[in-house]
Every structure is written in C-alpha cells, then in structure tokens.
C-alpha cells in the first residue's frame, strides 16, 4: 500500500492539517523565516560595519580585504540564512517526530482507541508506516513550507546541490530513526507508565543532541547518531578534527549516519513489528535467537566503531593501548549489551506459566517462552567469542595475547553472573503482583547498586582495600580492578554469592510457577 493511501497516515493528515490550520502554519513559518533572514542579514551587516570602522580608524582589516568581504557579503548572508534554516528544520523535525511517535501508541492506549485499531485488518507494517509518517505530519508540513526558501537561500549562498541534498538526507533519516525509536518506546509504555516513557524520550533526545561530543571518544562514529554532527561537518563549523571510522577505515559522516540509522533502525522495526498488534502484557521485543543476533550485532558494531587512537579511560587518554585494557573495556560494553538483551528476553507471566506446565526434559530450557538464563549464557558465550575475534581484528593496534583473553574470560564470567542475577530478579518481579513490575524491579536494582557503592565508599574510608573488597563482593566492578590480584579470593567469594543468589532466584521463580500450576490443576479437576 502506498503510504499516502495508508489509512493511518490519511487519518493524521485529515485531523491535523485542515485547510485553516495549514494556512496558519504556512503563515507562521513564513514569518519565522523572515525573522531568521533579517537576523542573519543584521548580524552580517553589523560585522561588515565593524570591519569598515576598523579600517577607517586603524586601517585593519586592509581595504582589499574589506572590499572582498563586502563583495562576498551577500553570499555569506544567504549561506548563513540557509544554515540556520537547516538547523531550525532539523530541530523541529527530529524533536517533533520523537515526541509525537513516543506518545503515539501509549496515547491511543490511554484514549481507549487502540483496541479498535488493533481489531482492524491493518498489518503491523501498515501501522508502522502510517504512524511513523502520520504522527509528525505537521512537522513534515513545516519542512515542506521551508523547502522553497531553503533551496533559494542555498542557491544564493552557493551551498551547492550536494550540500543541500546531504543536509536534507541527514535531517530526514535522523527524524525517521528518532520516530522509530519513539514508536518503539511508546509501545512499551501504557497509561500508568507514560510519564516514564516521556522522561526516556527527552533523555534520548538529549543524548542525541549531545552525541556530537562523542566525536572525542573511543567510539568516534557514535557521534554520527546525531544529525547535527553531519551538519556541522557539512557547514564547515569548527569541531574536533576527527573522522568516523569502521575498523579504522575513514568513512564520510553522512554515510556513517545513514549506516547507523539503517542498521539500528532495522532492529527497531523488527521489535515494533513483533509487538505492535499484541496486547501490552504479551509484548516481547525480540525472540530468543533474535536477541542473540542483536547482542552479536551490538558487539560487532562496538568493535567496528572502535578507534584505538582515541582510547580514553577515567585517567585520560591511554596510548599505547594494551590488549588487557581493550579486553576489559569490551567486556564492560558487552555487560550493558547483555543486560539490554536480558530485558528483551524476559518472558511474559502467562507464557512462562504455560511453559512451566508443558516443559519436558532439559531441552525445554531452551524453549522460546522458557526462563531467560540459558539464553543469557549463550549471549555471554557469543560476546566472548566476539571478544576473541575483535582482539584478533585489532591485533595490529592492541596486540593479541593469551593473558588478555584469560582476563577477558574471568571478567566475562563475573559480568554474566551479575547480569543473570539481575535479569532473574526482574523475571521474578514479573511473576509477582507488583504494578509495573519491570520498572519497579529496575528501580530496586538501581537502589541496590547505589547502596553497594555507598557501602564501599564507607568501608574505603578506613581502608582502600576493604572498600574494594566490598565493591568486589556486591558488584562486577571488582573484576575490572587492576589491583584484584591482591584480593582474588574475595572476587571468587563474590562470584559464589552471585551463583547462590541465582539458585535462590530460580527456586523462588519455580515456587511461584508451581503455585500457578496448582491453581490450574485444581481448576481443571
């Protein structure tokens, strides 16, 4: 179905762009464009005037330079106007897309219209396209109104067709990506947790707004998540002289942005399509194999975007980079990936109950609706395999030695134990009668880690070693500590405690599931 005939798109078009409203928007856009234009002209004129006075009073800048500045003046004014118009459109389109899409599905749930939409014959893909393009329809209309003025300003400002096309490509792809992210977030929140969804939305926007500063990090390419990075490069604005790289090979920022948007966007599309027509409680963003694939993809992307020359640690720049530092860093990255995948693998309450009743043998542990821990182990193994491969891929820059691999293995095991414990805790929360169990579970985990850190600091006041030991017992941080060798037994005790906690959580989960099964059996009888 063509998108302009998509019922969802047409609904938004009709509701939000009635003639009177469209004319008003057009008028407001024209006024704002005129104001921006006058601002650029005024600023440039003030600068030329200042140079003119400087020339008259002090002879600086010289007359030839002033003449050149004056003759170049109109071109610079138009280019500045074009640049500001592009920035304005970027802000409007990206922010509007994210905000509208992030309230789309949760808003429909709250408005009690969502079930009627789900009951129609619209396919998940049609929903996705209709909402993605329809929700921010006003923003697209604003961009459409600005387009002729921007093209004119770009032409008069000698911006070049490539510059204009690249700028619009960045803005459009960025807004589509943000729209997808917003839609996905909105599918995960219902009316009770909508506020948290909105906080997440603003957090995501802030991250993307400031992602441009990641240009100075070990993953330079991540800065390309922000369309602003590409635009700043396009407009030759002063930013640190860095290039986006894939496995060390330089890639244009526009290409990097498009690559990131398309690959991460593809995962978002998959997650949205899987859940958009499902009931809120039944949503599981990824299947188990997809989650493994996603974990592998994220790890692979981390190795691809890594830039050894810009390796930064808490102590500052680190060169030359040692393989054990590299391994520790990547295991840390994989820890976050594992946790995110663990979240995606948590089974809905009733699916897990059905699995419990129908489970037969050990093989059923790997069932789609079974517990997440076997799959976390597979994800962990995949992550470690990719670490070995990544070290091999970067061996010219970071070296490839067995000790680093061994350190990586110990750290991976520690991370896996803590992540498994946390995910099993969240899975157990989901089996309780808590309202918004995952959110509350995450909150408890956050409180736990804050408390563990505070305790370590308190112990650390009397003795640094005590503080480090406390941290090693309760968090995975000990495995990443260089001084671990002096208290490796504590690390082992910490690991054993986590394994014991995992067993306890498994028993608690089984007890809950048994409870449900006994209700089922008595009812069936």
């Amino acid at each position: 179905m063509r998108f302009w005939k998509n019922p969802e798109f047409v609904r938004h078009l009709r509701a939000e762009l009635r003639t009177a409203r469209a004319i008003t928007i057009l008028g407001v856009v024209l006024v704002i464009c005129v104001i921006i234009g006058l601002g650029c002209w005024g600023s440039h004129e003030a600068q030329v005037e200042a140079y003119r006075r400087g020339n008259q009073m002090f002879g600086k800048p010289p007359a030839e330079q002033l003449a050149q500045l004056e003759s170049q003046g109109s071109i610079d004014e138009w280019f500045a106007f074009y640049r500001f118009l592009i920035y304005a459109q970027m802000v409007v389109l990206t922010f509007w897309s994210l905000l509208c899409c992030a309230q789309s599905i949760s808003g429909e749930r709250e408005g009690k219209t969502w079930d009627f939409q789900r009951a129609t014959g619209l396919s998940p893909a049609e929903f996705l396209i209709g909402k993605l393009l329809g929700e921010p329809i006003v923003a697209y209309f604003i961009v459409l109104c600005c387009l002729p003025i921007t093209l004119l300003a770009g032409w008069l400002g000698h911006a070049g067709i490539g510059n204009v096309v690249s700028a619009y490509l960045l803005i459009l792809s960025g807004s589509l990506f943000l729209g997808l992210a917003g839609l996905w977030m909105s599918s995960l929140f219902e009316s009770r947790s909508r506020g948290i969804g909105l906080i997440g939305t603003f957090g995501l926007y802030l991250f993307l707004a400031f992602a441009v500063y990641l240009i100075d990090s070990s993953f330079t390419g991540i800065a390309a998540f922000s369309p602003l990075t590409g635009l700043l490069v396009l407009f030759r604005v002063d930013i640190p002289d860095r290039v986006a790289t894939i496995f060390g090979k330089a890639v244009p920022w526009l290409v990097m942005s498009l690559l990131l948007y398309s690959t991460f966007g593809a995962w978002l599309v998959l997650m949205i399509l899987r859940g958009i027509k499902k009931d809120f409680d039944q949503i599981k963003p990824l299947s188990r194999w997809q989650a493994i694939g996603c974990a592998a993809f994220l790890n692979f992307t981390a190795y691809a975007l890594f830039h050894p020359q810009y390796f930064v640690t808490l102590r500052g720049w680190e060169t030359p980079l040692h393989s054990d530092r590299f391994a520790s860093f990547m295991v840390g990255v994989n820890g976050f990936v594992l946790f995110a995948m663990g979240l995606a693998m948590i089974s809905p309450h009733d699916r897990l109950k059905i699995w419990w009743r129908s489970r037969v043998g050990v093989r059923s542990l790997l069932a789609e609706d079974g517990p997440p821990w076997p799959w976390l182990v597979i994800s962990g193994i995949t992550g470690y395999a990719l670490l070995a491969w990544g070290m091999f891929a970067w061996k010219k820059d970071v070296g490839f030695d067995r000790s680093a691999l061994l350190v990586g293995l110990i750290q991976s095991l520690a991370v896996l134990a803590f992540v498994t414990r946390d995910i099993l805790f969240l899975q157990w929360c989901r089996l309780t009668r808590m309202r918004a169990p995952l959110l509350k579970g995450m909150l408890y985990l956050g409180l736990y880690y804050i408390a563990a850190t505070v305790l370590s600091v308190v112990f650390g006041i009397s003795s640094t070693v005590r503080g480090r030991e406390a941290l090693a017992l309760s968090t995975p941080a000990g495995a990443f500590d260089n001084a671990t060798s002096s208290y490796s037994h504590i690390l082992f005790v910490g690991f054993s405690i986590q394994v014991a906690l995992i067993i306890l959580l498994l028993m608690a989960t089984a007890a809950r599931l048994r409870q449900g099964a006994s209700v089922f059996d008595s009812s069936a009888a």
Partner: protein
Amino acid sequence: MIQIANLRKEFDELVAVDNLTLTIPSGEIYGLIGPNGAGKTTTIRIACGLLEPTQGEVRVADVDVLRDPERARQHIGYLSDFFSVYEDLKVREYLDYFAHAYKMPDAKIAQRITEVIEQAGLEAKCDSLIQGLSRGMKQRLGIARAMIHCPKVLLLDEPASGLDPKARIELRNLLRSVRDQGATILISSHILTELEGLCTSIGIMEKGRLVRTGRLEDVVSTGAQSRAIRLQWLGDAAAQLHELLSKTVAASEPKLNANDGEFRFSGSDDELAQFLTQIVACGIRVLSFREVRQTVEEMYMKLSTHEVM
C-alpha cells in the same frame, strides 16, 4: 458462527475465564451476563483476537482466531464499554478510516458509509466533527464503525453503559436491525434488563465460568417446577377463590388480596385452562388471568444465591 472451546485465561494468579465452552449459531443475539469481573470482557477480547488465551480455541465464521487473526478480524466487528473515538475527525472521515483499515474495496466504501450512517441515524451529523456529538450519538457511531465492513459477527462489550434510556432504546432498535441483516451478535452486560427483549439466547457467567446457557426462555424457566399465575377479579370473591385453589391439586402458594392475587400452578396448559373455566363457572368475574414470566434478573438473582443450580 462463534465456537469457543475450553477457553482459559489467567492473569497472574487470577483465573479470569475458566474452561469456557460456548457455541453461538448464526443469526443469534447472544447475551453474556454476569457481575463485574465475571470474565465477560476477557472472553470478548479473546474472541476478537485482542488477547491471547492461556489455553483453548476460538473460531469465528469457521476461522481460527488465534491462528489466523487477520482473516478472522475481517468477520468481526468490535465495540467495547469504555470506547473512545477520534474527536478531531468528522463522522464520515471516521468511518472512511475504518473502512480502509478493514481493507474494503475502494469502490464500495462511499456507498457503505452512507448505508451505515443511515442505519445509525447519523445523517444530520455526517459532516460534523465528532467532538460535537452527544454520548448516545458517539455510541451509535461506534456501532456504525463496528459494522462498516459488513462483519458476520458483532462483539459488543457493555455497549449501553453510560447511555440514557432513550439512547438505550435506540441502540436496541439498531441492534435488532443489524441482526435482521444477518449478523450474529454477542453482547455482554451486567444490566440484565438491557438484554431482556433483545437477546435470543443468553449465558450467565460467574467467576470465569459459564453457569447457565441456552435459549432465553429455556434459561429463564430453568429450575422452576411450577409457574406463577396472576389474576384479577371484580367483586368479593377472595374466599371462594381460596377454596377453589385449595381443592385444585396443581395449585399452590395462593397469595390473594381483595381483588387480585397470585398462585403457583404445576399442571399443564390444558389443566390451567380447565381451572380458569371452573372459576368462571363458579360465578367469579375474572378481569385478567395470566402467567407471570420469570425475568432474567430474577433468574440471575436465584442463580447467584444458589437457589437454582
């Protein structure tokens, strides 16, 4: 038309629907009654394919709703209790949106919209914004939306909640006309009088279980060993009537006033007619003589207090 087999749905530790089996033939208006929390809404949402059951099977128009939900939805029109509409659309635009969403052929949409607008009595408002409609009109628009794609089955969850008496009567008439066009309707409600006179069959749900189901008259008469007869007469005949009743074996529990009264009769229609002839022959001037039918409400109260099992 609707077949539900061994349906079960659990929410955490609550069993919302417990082993429900139900068959609704084509052309029926089936009323699902029960208190709040009985499992009516869950049953309807599962039948629509909006909710996955813990176990069981649902077929609508011979399509498995769980295995082929997209195809099943083409046969289902759905309206829920706390429904909402897109206030910023016009009536015609709203219906056009759902007609396209249900994948109706473009050529048929305009005509079908006109038809349902007419059927729902919204002709005067078809080009108005929905935000200007009354609640009753919005409800009628909801029904129009549910039947825009000519579904074989309408699933209505408490469609009359919050409506005033006039709007309820209009809704009832509208549903009858939809049924006359061949649709099968499953309607849930906890307002029992709402379903009486509308439904051809009913099912009574309690705690997720279907405790009674069948044709309305069968369900209503279930458990009654005798029927209640109400009569009115002229003149002072109470004592004479009391004596006649006590002599008739089939009659019992007489409650007589000065000019009217009620008693229970366990005999056949013939015997009842004979009894009427007898009292008229005795010179009692009978003004009215009729059977008092048990209402759904009375039946439901008996069921919920376990007077009838």
